[in-house]
């Protein structure tokens, strides 16, 4: 009897310990290690704040964070503005039986490999790529435009991905909206435009905020898209982090930069936390 109660108490912990242990060992502990590393000097010696103060005093490093924030803000705004009308058309204008197919098609390129997706945009935007050939071929421009290796290319690559992601989330939001709200607005004499502005848009705003926050987090931490499409003309934070490891093997500085990047995301989260309450039905 005694052993039965013992095993009764041991079983739940036996179930949850492996997952907790894994998280502690390979997520929390690495984070602690990174924290320690960020406080040491690259060439050995004791604790130092040098890695952090270097970030705040070196304008080149500081600029990378500014670039990252600018690109992320531009990408988030453009993606929401492009995706909302598209999701609305899919949810309201496309006949019910075609909606699933239309949505699946709209997010199909989502499933191309992430490295390949950026490469594909390089094919489109390159000096002698599809767009430049079309522009020079049609006689609109005599010289090819510099499209690849610019901020424009990075933003295009990002927007392409996040329009698909936001279309999914906003579409789900519009579909969850009970039709009775719209009927009520119509009964009270509101036209379609007023109904949209005063009823549909405010009710879908929390969903948009969640999608926009997701865009922010995924965008600011991404290395591939700016590296392939933006080149090294202007550095974003993840490129700066990777550069410390790649060229110089400077783990302490890379750790400090990673922690700063994470702090920025945390601050953004706290700033939007009250709009991000994911309500459960």
């Amino acid at each position, binding site marked *: 009897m005694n052993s039965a109660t013992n095993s009764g108490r041991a*079983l*739940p*912990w*036996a*179930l*949850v310990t*492996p*997952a*907790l242990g*894994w*998280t*502690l060992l*390979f*997520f*929390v*502990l690495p*984070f602690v*290690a*990174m924290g320690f*590393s960020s406080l040491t000097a690259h060439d050995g010696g004791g604790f130092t704040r040098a890695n952090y103060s270097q970030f705040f005093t070196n304008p080149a490093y500081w600029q990378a964070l500014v670039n990252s924030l600018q690109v992320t803000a531009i990408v988030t705004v453009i993606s929401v503005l*492009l995706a909302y*009308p*598209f999701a609305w*058309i*899919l949810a309201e*204008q496309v006949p019910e039986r075609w909606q699933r197919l239309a949505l699946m*098609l*709209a997010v*199909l*390129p989502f*499933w*191309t*490999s*992430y*490295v*390949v*997706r950026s*490469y*594909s945009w390089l*094919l489109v935007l*390159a000096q*002698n790529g*599809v767009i430049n*050939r079309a522009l020079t071929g049609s006689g609109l421009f005599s010289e090819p435009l510099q499209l690849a290796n610019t901020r424009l290319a990075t933003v295009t690559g990002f927007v*392409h991905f996040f*329009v698909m992601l936001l279309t999914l989330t906003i579409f789900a939001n519009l579909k969850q909206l009970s039709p009775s709200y719209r009927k009520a607005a119509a009964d009270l004499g509101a036209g379609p435009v007023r109904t949209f502005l005063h009823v549909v848009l405010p009710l879908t705003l929390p969903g948009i905020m969640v999608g926009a926050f997701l865009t922010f*987090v995924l965008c600011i*931490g*991404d*290395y*591939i898209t700016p590296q392939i499409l933006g080149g090294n003309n202007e550095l974003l934070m*993840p490129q700066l982090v*990777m550069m410390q490891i790649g060229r110089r093997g400077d*783990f302490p500085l*890379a*750790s400090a930069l*990673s922690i700063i*990047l*994470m702090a920025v*995301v945390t601050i953004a989260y706290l700033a939007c936390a009250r709009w991000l309450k994911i309500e459960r039905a």
Partner: protein
Amino acid sequence: MRALVRIVSWLYAVAIYGFIFLPVVVLVLFSLQATSFPIPPFTGPSLRWYDAVLADTRLTSALVNSLLVAALSSAAAVTLGFLSAWGFARFALPGSALLRGLITLPLTVSYLIIGMGLLVLFNWAGVPKSLLAAGIGHVVINLPLCFAIIYSQMGDHQINIERAARDLGAPEWKVLLLITVPVMAPAIFAGFFLSMTFSWDEFVISFLLTRFDTTLPVEIWNLLRSGLNPKTNAVGSLVFAVSIVLVVFFELMLLRRKPA
């Protein structure tokens, strides 16, 4: 007015579809290029670059590595996720909310930072870079996902069936294997499938934690150093095809499960 809205809607939808599909169409079209540059004019169709991909042992072994890492790390993530979800759903544990929060915490941190942390830790501990190290990283990113999916699907309904089985004298392991796992199969499958696709496509953790034997996204990245190359188009198109097959398969499984 209504007709105008329809026309504008159509034009807008076509423009967005065009934007979404432009890079994919260019990718696949120029993978069939007969000459050495994937730029206009189109000179194909030719399958020579697909032959080149299949003859490249670095790419084919990277593909096998990717599948192995994806399958094994997803199996580990879904097992750990399922056991912990079951434990938290069935028993009232002290500090449950806090511990559940800890397990889902990695979802909020970008892959780059998770990879960096593991790199620093493994570097200090003297663990060499390897596919195993990358697989450990993939379990870190997929475990919270599997846990969240399975935990959210565990309801009273399934607890009651388990209780019935236990009352009828089934030992704990029998309840687990014969009742809980089959009842939770859709959530377990969804977690496993999502983990597979994330691991299959993951770049930065594999890039940081592997050296010679590596995964397909890292090998494709290495190919990019040679600039625009139809071979990259071909391997990209193949990866796309595999993903589409997986997604369609998943959709069909979901549709079949829906009660008629």
